C-alpha cells in the first residue's frame, strides 16, 4: 500500500474527530491547569486569577526535590522490574499455541479490570501480619512468627509492578509475536545457547519496543497515587500523592497545578532524552 501525504483539506477528515476529542479532553484541560498554576492562592479560601510564580517557587525546595527524585526513581524501578519479568514472559508466551496465548491474554486483561483500590487492599491483606502470606510460611515451618510486610517500600513496589505488568505484556506482545523466528534459528545454528541467543540477538532486535515499553510503564507508575498511600509509609509517598493532598485536602489548586505541570515536564524531558539515546543508538 502506498501512503501519500494529505493533499486536500478533505484528506484530513478522518483525523478531525480524534483531533477534536484530543483538543477538548486533553489540550484544553491541560491548558487550564497550566493557567491555574500561575494563579494566586488565597489562604483559607480558594484562588483568584493573577500571574504569580510563587507556586513554582514553593516547589523549588530540597524537600520537593527529594520527593521528585524518589518518584522518578520509583517509576524507573517499576519499569525495570516490569521489563525483567515481562520480556521473558512475553517471549515464551508468543511461542505457545494460539489457544494458550488467548487464555493467558484474557487472564492478564482480567487484572486490568481490577481497580487500583482493590489491588491496593488485596495486597495490603496479603502482606499483613494477621491474615497475610507470612502465616502460610509459619505454618510451613519456614518462619517463627507472622510479620507485617506492609507498609514498606517493597510492598509499594510489588503493588505497582503487579498493576503495571499487564500493560507491559500488552505493549510487548505485538512486537514479539511479529519477531522473525529465523533470527533465533540462525543464532542457534551458529552455536549460540538459547539464553545467549535471546540476550544477544532477540533483545537488541527489540531495542525500540523495549524503550517504548519502559517509557509507557514509567509514566504509568509516575501517576500512581493510591498504592503508595495504601502500601507505603509517608516516606514512600510519591509526588502524585502530594498533588492529591494539595488539590483535594488543602484546596490549594494553584500549587497542585504547579506540581502537576512540573511532573509532566519532568517526564516529557525524560521521554525526549530516551528518544535521543535511541536515535543515536539506531544510527550507529
Amino acid at each position, binding site marked *: 500500500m502506498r501512503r501519500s501525504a494529505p493533499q486536500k483539506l478533505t484528506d484530513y477528515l478522518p483525523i478531525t474527530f480524534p483531533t477534536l476529542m484530543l483538543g477538548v479532553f486533553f489540550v484544553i484541560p491541560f491548558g487550564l491547569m497550566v493557567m491555574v498554576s500561575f494563579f494566586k492562592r488565597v489562604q483559607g479560601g480558594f484562588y483568584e486569577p493573577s500571574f504569580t510564580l510563587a507556586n513554582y517557587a514553593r516547589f523549588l525546595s530540597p524537600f520537593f526535590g527529594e520527593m521528585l527524585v524518589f518518584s522518578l526513581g520509583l517509576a524507573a524501578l517499576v519499569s525495570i522490574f516490569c521489563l525483567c519479568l515481562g520480556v521473558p514472559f512475553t517471549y515464551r508466551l508468543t511461542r505457545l499455541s494460539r489457544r494458550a496465548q488467548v487464555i493467558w491474554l484474557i487472564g492478564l486483561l482480567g487484572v486490568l479490570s481490577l481497580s487500583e483500590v482493590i489491588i491496593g487492599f488485596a495486597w495490603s491483606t496479603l502482606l499483613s501480619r494477621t491474615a497475610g502470606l507470612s502465616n502460610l510460611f509459619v505454618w510451613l515451618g519456614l518462619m517463627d512468627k507472622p510479620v507485617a510486610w506492609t507498609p514498606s517500600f517493597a510492598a509499594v513496589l510489588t503493588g505497582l509492578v503487579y498493576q503495571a505488568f499487564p500493560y507491559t505484556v500488552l505493549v510487548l506482545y505485538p512486537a514479539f509475536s511479529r519477531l522473525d523466528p529465523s533470527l533465533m534459528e540462525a543464532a542457534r545454528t551458529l552455536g549460540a545457547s538459547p539464553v545467549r541467543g535471546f540476550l544477544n540477538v532477540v533483545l537488541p532486535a527489540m531495542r525500540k519496543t523495549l524503550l517504548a515499553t519502559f517509557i509507557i510503564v514509567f509514566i504509568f507508575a509516575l501517576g500512581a497515587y493510591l498504592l503508595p498511600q495504601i502500601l507505603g509509609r509517608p516516606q514512600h*509517598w510519591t509526588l502524585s500523592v502530594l498533588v492529591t493532598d494539595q488539590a483535594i485536602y488543602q484546596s490549594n489548586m494553584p500549587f497542585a497545578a504547579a506540581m502537576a505541570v512540573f511532573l509532566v515536564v519532568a517526564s516529557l524531558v525524560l521521554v525526549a532524552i530516551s528518544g535521543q539515546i535511541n536515535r543515536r543508538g539506531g544510527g550507529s
Partner: protein
Amino acid sequence: MIKDTRSTFSRRSFLAASTAGVSMLAMPSVLRAQDRSIKVGVYGGYFKDSFDKHIFPKFTEETGIAVESVAEPTGEAWLVQLEQAARAGAAPADLSMMSQVAMLKGQSTELWAPIDMSKITNAGDVLPQFLNKYPDDRVAGVGAVAWYINLVSNTEAYPEAPESWAFIWDPANEGKLGLLALVSNSFLLEVTAKTFFGGTGILDTEEGILKVMDKLAELKPNVQLWYRDEAQFEQALKSGEIPMGQYYHDVTGLAAADGFPVRSTFPKEGGILDSGCWALSRASDKVDEAHVFIDFMTRPEMQSLMSLKVGTAPTLKRDVLALTDEEFASVSSSIDPIIPRYDLYTSKADWLNQKWTELIVG
C-alpha cells in the same frame, strides 16, 4: 416515493411537536412536584446509610419534601467541588454537612448562603459553638451533629483500656498506631499541646507550634499507618493488625456493637470534639426547603434520634434533650473535650501543611 417519505417525516415531526406541547402544558405540575425536594450532602458510607434509613424518611413524611441524599467525601474534597460548581452557578447539593475547617474556608469566599435563624424554631437551643457566623453576624451554618475522635484500641491486643493520650508515646507501642495523615483532620497538634503543654495556647505562635511538632516527631516510630481513608484503618483495627490509634467514636461504637474486639476511650485529656454544620450553597435555589430542613433537624427529638441511631453527639443544650444519662454518655463525655484550633487551619494553612508533611515524610 420521495414525496411520501417527506410527508411521513413531516407528520412525525408534527406528532413530536404536539407531544412536546402537551408535556409543556403538563410541566407546571411536574415543576411543583420537583419544587418540594432537596439535595442533601452527607458523608458517604455508614453515615449516609443511617441517615437514609432513620432520618430522611421521617422528614419527607412530615413535610412532603423529598430528600435526595448525596454521598460526599470527607475532608475538603467536597468543599472544592461545591466551590467549583458554585462558580459555574451549579449546586451538586443544596445543603451539605460540612466540617469546621471546610465551613471557615467556604465562608471566606461567601460560598454559604446566610441562614435566617428566625425561621428555625429551636434556634435558641443550639449551643453557641455550633453556630458558624460571618464577621457581620449572618449565620453561615447551623450545627448538624458533633462527633468525637477518640483513642481507640483493639481489646484483644490491649486488655486494659488506655487512660491518656500520653500512652501512644510509650516506646512499647512501636509500630502499633494508626493516625490520621493530615494536619487539618488529625488535630494531633491540639492533642499533643493539651497532653504535654497544658493546653492549646502554645499553638498561638509559630515557635510554639514547632515545639509541639518536635514532641510529635517522637511518636513517629510508633506509627504503622498514617491514613487518609477511614476504611483502611477501621479494618486494621478490627483485625488487630494495627491495634491502636485515633478514630471516630461513633463508628467504633457501632463496630463494637457488631461484636468486633474494639473500644473507644475518652482519654483523661478529653476526646477531640469536631462537628458538622448544615450549610447551604449560594448556588442553590432551594432556600425555603433548606430552612424547613434545618428547622426539622434541630428539633430536640431529631437530635436525640441521631444520637441513638447514628451515634453522633447532639448540638443542642443538654437539658432540652430527652436522652437518658446513659444514652448521652454513650455519645459524649463529661470530660472537657479537646477543641480543635480551627483558626490555625485557615490563617496558617499552607505553613502548617508544609511543616506537617515534612514532619511525617522526613
